[in-house]
């Protein structure tokens, strides 16, 4: 049987790679996909803990994360398309009007 630390370690690695993507990349679409990566790593941790505690609540939490992610992707992609229409770019370095 695979121990639960293996799943949690995989989840930690995926989360870190996703965070690195958000910090390093400048293409808004790839940053958004990195955020999806982080959400998925958290889902994996939820499922691993649900298995470890033999409690199904963790899997229900994953269901709600999925719902919120779906709404988030729809709104986020609409925003990116809107920014692209207005400014002809998805490079976040070019979208810095709110920069202090």
């Amino acid at each position: 049987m695979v121990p639960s630390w293996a799943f949690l370690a995989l989840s930690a690695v995926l989360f870190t790679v996703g965070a690195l993507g958000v910090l390093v990349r400048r293409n808004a679409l790839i940053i958004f996909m990195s955020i999806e990566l982080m959400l998925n790593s958290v889902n994996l941790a939820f499922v691993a803990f649900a298995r470890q505690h033999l409690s199904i609540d963790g899997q229900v939490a994953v269901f709600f994360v999925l719902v919120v992610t779906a709404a988030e992707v729809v709104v986020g992609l609409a925003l990116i398309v809107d920014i692209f229409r207005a400014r002809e770019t998805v490079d976040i370095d070019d979208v810095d009007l709110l920069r202090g």
Partner: protein
Amino acid sequence: MEWVVFLAAAVLAVGGSIGVVAARQPVHSAVSLLVVLVALAVTYLVLAAQFIAALQVIIYAGAIVVLFLFVIMLLHARSGEGLITKLPRQSAAAAIFAALYLAVLLLAAFGAAAPLRTPPEGFGTAQQVGELLFVTYLLPFQMAGVILLIGIVAAVVLGRRSPPGADEER
């Protein structure tokens, strides 16, 4: 046997995640994301979460990645990154802090891990998840529907072409 499946899925997931972050073209990122999502669905199966694994493939791979691909196609040619960055030292700083963060996360993960017991019959089936969802979590379930409705409305409002004459304010 479980180890073989898990290790294959883990290698695919980590490789795919590096592909998401490192790919030059957004399309390659999206395909790598698809690999990660399917690999994670396999790990969910190893963790006795059949229903979540099915949801993962249907919602993530079937809907969200397709949405990403549509938007990438919509924006395709001019959707790259500029050559010069405004924050030249950010990559090095990000790598250092990501390494530290990974160390902290791994410590926490090893601290929280405990030996696994054999799951009872029917653990993680759609029936069990559904019962909890429609009894204990009924109100959050209804709220999830409202959130999705708000998402749809927001997408329609944001995606609407601005009426003629409103372009000056942009």
